[in-house]
C-alpha cells in the first residue's frame, strides 16, 4: 500500500450509478452510468426504473472504473458508499454491492452521507477544505445551506428548502414552458437569450418576518406557481409565451435568493469560503452571480466542475478517503440504507 489510501466509492442514491476511485486527495477515475433517459418520458425519476438500472449497471461500472484507473480491486484500501439520503430501493443496490466488496476483499467499509459527499468532492478539485467552510447544496432533491467545521464528522444545517428543491423548481418550470426533462440545462440555455428583469417573480423568504423566521431556509414552490400562473394567463389570452424572458426571469429569482442567503450566512458566521455543489451548481447564471457577490464580499468561491457537481462516485470516494486519512473508524457491516438520513449524520 502506498502511503495515500486508495478508496473506491459507490453512489446510487438517485438515477446515476457512480463509481469513483481516489488516492488520498487525488481523483483517479469517475465512472458513471445514468438512467436519466429512461425517466425522461415520465417527467421525473421513477424509483423502480432507477433501481433496476442500478442493478444492471453496478458491476460493469465498477469494472470500468478499475480498468480506466489501472487499479486492481485487491489493491483498494477501503470501500465507501452512499448510505443516504436518497431513494430507498436505489440506495440498497449500492450498499449491497459495497458490502459485497468489503467482505470479498476483506476491506473496511464507510457508509457516508450523500450531502457531505457533495461538499467533500471539491477537495479533489481545489484542494483541502478550509475549516470551517460554508456550503450550499442545490440539486434536484436538495437545497441546503451547511456550515462545515469538519466534513468527516461535523456538518451543521443552517437551513433548507421548506418545499421544492431548487433543481425541482427548474424541472417543474421547464415543464410549464414545454422544455424536456431534466429542465435545468434547458432553462439555463433558453435564459441566455432572455431578459432577466422582464418579469418580477417572487423571491421566497427574503423579507420581513419570513426572513426572520426562515433566515437560511428556502421556498421555491410559490415561485413555481407564480410562473405557471403567469404563463397560463398569457396562454388563455391567446398570447405567445416569451420563453427566453420567462426562463431568464425565473432563473434570476432562484439564483438571487440562493446567492443572497449564502452570502448572508458567510457574513453572519464569519466564514470566508463558500462552496457550491449539486446539479444546479452547473447553472451558468448561478456561477456568475455567486462569483460577483463573493468578490464584492471578499469571500472565496469554490465550485467543482459540473461533472463533479451532479451525483457521482468520486465524491463518495473522496469523503471515504478523508475518513481514512483522519483515522475515523469504519462503519458496521450491518449498516442500513437510510433514505432520510439527516445531513448532520456524516457517517452511517
Amino acid at each position, binding site marked *: 500500500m502506498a502511503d495515500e489510501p486508495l478508496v473506491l466509492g459507490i453512489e446510487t442514491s438517485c438515477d446515476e450509478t457512480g463509481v469513483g476511485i481516489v488516492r488520498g486527495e487525488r481523483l483517479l477515475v469517475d465512472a458513471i452510468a445514468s438512467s436519466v433517459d429512461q425517466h425522461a*418520458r415520465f417527467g421525473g425519476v*421513477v424509483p423502480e426504473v432507477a433501481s433496476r438500472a442500478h442493478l444492471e449497471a453496478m458491476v*460493469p461500472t*465498477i469494472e470500468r472504473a478499475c480498468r480506466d484507473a489501472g487499479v486492481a480491486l485487491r489493491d483498494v484500501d477501503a470501500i465507501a458508499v452512499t448510505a443516504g439520503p436518497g431513494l430507498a430501493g436505489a440506495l440498497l443496490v449500492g450498499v449491497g*454491492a459495497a*458490502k*459485497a466488496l468489503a467482505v470479498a476483499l*476483506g476491506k473496511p467499509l464507510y457508509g457516508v452521507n450523500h450531502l457531505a459527499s457533495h461538499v467533500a468532492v471539491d477537495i479533489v478539485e481545489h484542494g483541502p477544505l478550509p475549516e470551517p467552510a460554508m456550503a450550499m447544496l442545490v440539486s434536484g432533491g436538495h437545497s441546503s445551506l451547511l456550515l462545515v467545521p469538519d466534513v468527516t464528522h461535523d456538518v451543521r444545517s443552517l437551513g433548507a428548502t421548506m418545499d421544492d428543491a431548487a433543481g425541482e423548481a427548474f424541472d417543474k418550470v421547464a415543464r410549464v414552458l414545454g422544455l424536456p426533462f431534466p429542465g435545468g440545462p434547458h432553462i439555463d440555455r433558453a435564459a441566455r437569450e432572455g431578459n432577466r428583469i422582464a418579469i418580477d417573480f417572487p423571491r421566497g423568504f427574503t423579507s420581513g418576518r419570513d426572513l426572520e423566521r426562515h433566515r437560511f431556509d428556502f421556498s421555491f414552490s410559490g415561485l413555481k406557481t407564480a410562473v405557471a400562473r403567469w404563463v*397560463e394567463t398569457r396562454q388563455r389570452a391567446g398570447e405567445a409565451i416569451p420563453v427566453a424572458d420567462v426562463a431568464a426571469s425565473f432563473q434570476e429569482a432562484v439564483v438571487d435568493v440562493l446567492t443572497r442567503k449564502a452570502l448572508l450566512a458567510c457574513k453572519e458566521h464569519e466564514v470566508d469560503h463558500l462552496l457550491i455543489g449539486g446539479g444546479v451548481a452547473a447553472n451558468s447564471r448561478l456561477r456568475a452571480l455567486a462569483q460577483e457577490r463573493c468578490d464584492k464580499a471578499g469571500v472565496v468561491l469554490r465550485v467543482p466542475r459540473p461533472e463533479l457537481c451532479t451525483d457521482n462516485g468520486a465524491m463518495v470516494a473522496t469523503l471515504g478517503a478523508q475518513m481514512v486519512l483522519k483515522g475515523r473508524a469504519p462503519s458496521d457491516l450491518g449498516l442500513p440504507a437510510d433514505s432520510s438520513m439527516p445531513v448532520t449524520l456524516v457517517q452511517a
Partner: protein
Amino acid sequence: MHLLAIDTSTSAITVALFDGSRVTAESTTLDPRAHAEHLAPGIRDVLDQAGVEPGEVTGVVVGIGPGPFTGLRVGIVTARTFGFALGVPVRGLCSHEALAHQAWLAGRRGGLLVATDARRKEVYAAEFTLTSTGSERVGDVLVSRSTDLPEHWRVLPTVGRGPLLYPDSLLGGIPSGVVGSELLDVSAGALGDLAARRWSAGEALPTAALEPGGGFDGLEPLYLRRPDTQPAPPSRKSTLG
C-alpha cells in the same frame, strides 16, 4: 469446492456454504424489510463458521426470485459483486425451485405448489412434481391473486407463505411439519445443494459472463411485473383555479 449460496427472495435472508457434498455453514435471518442489513454479516458469518477465507470461495449461486423487488435485488447485486471481486462464476437459480427442492429433501413426493408472498394481495406461484430422483417444475411461474390460480393448483400441498396469507383460497394445506420449519422461506443450504447437483450432473446453469461487458444472462431477477410508472400527466392542472 466452496460454493456460496445466497437467497433474498422471501422473508429469510439466507446464506450457506456448500462443499460439494454437504452444507458446511448456514446463516438465516427472518426480517422481510432489512435484507441489506443482514446479508453481508451473514456471508461473513458462514465464512467464519466454516473457516473459509473469501478467496477460497469457488463459485456463487443466487436465488433470482421471484420475490419482492427491493430485497431480491440486494441478494443478486451482492452475488454478482462478490463473484466479480473474486473472479469466480456466479450462477442464478429460480428461488421457487429451491423451495421445491427443500420439500424434496424433506421427503415430500408427488404434486406440490410453491406459493410465496408477492405483496399487493398477490402470490408468486409455480407447480412442481417431486419424484424419487428430484423435483421438476411444471409450467411457468406466475404472479396472481391466489383466488385466480388454476383450480388444480389450489388443492395441491403447498410450501411457501402463501397458505398462511391466503388460507381460504390455497386449500391443499401445508404439508405436515412445515409450519415452523424452513419450508416457509427459501433455505440457502437447499439452494446450494440443488445447484451442486445440477452442476455435477453437467447441466448448464446460467452464468454471469466475467468478460468485460459480458452482461448477466440468466442472472436477471424474475421480476414478473413491470415497474410501476406514473407517466407525467399530459395536461397540467390549472393554476388559475
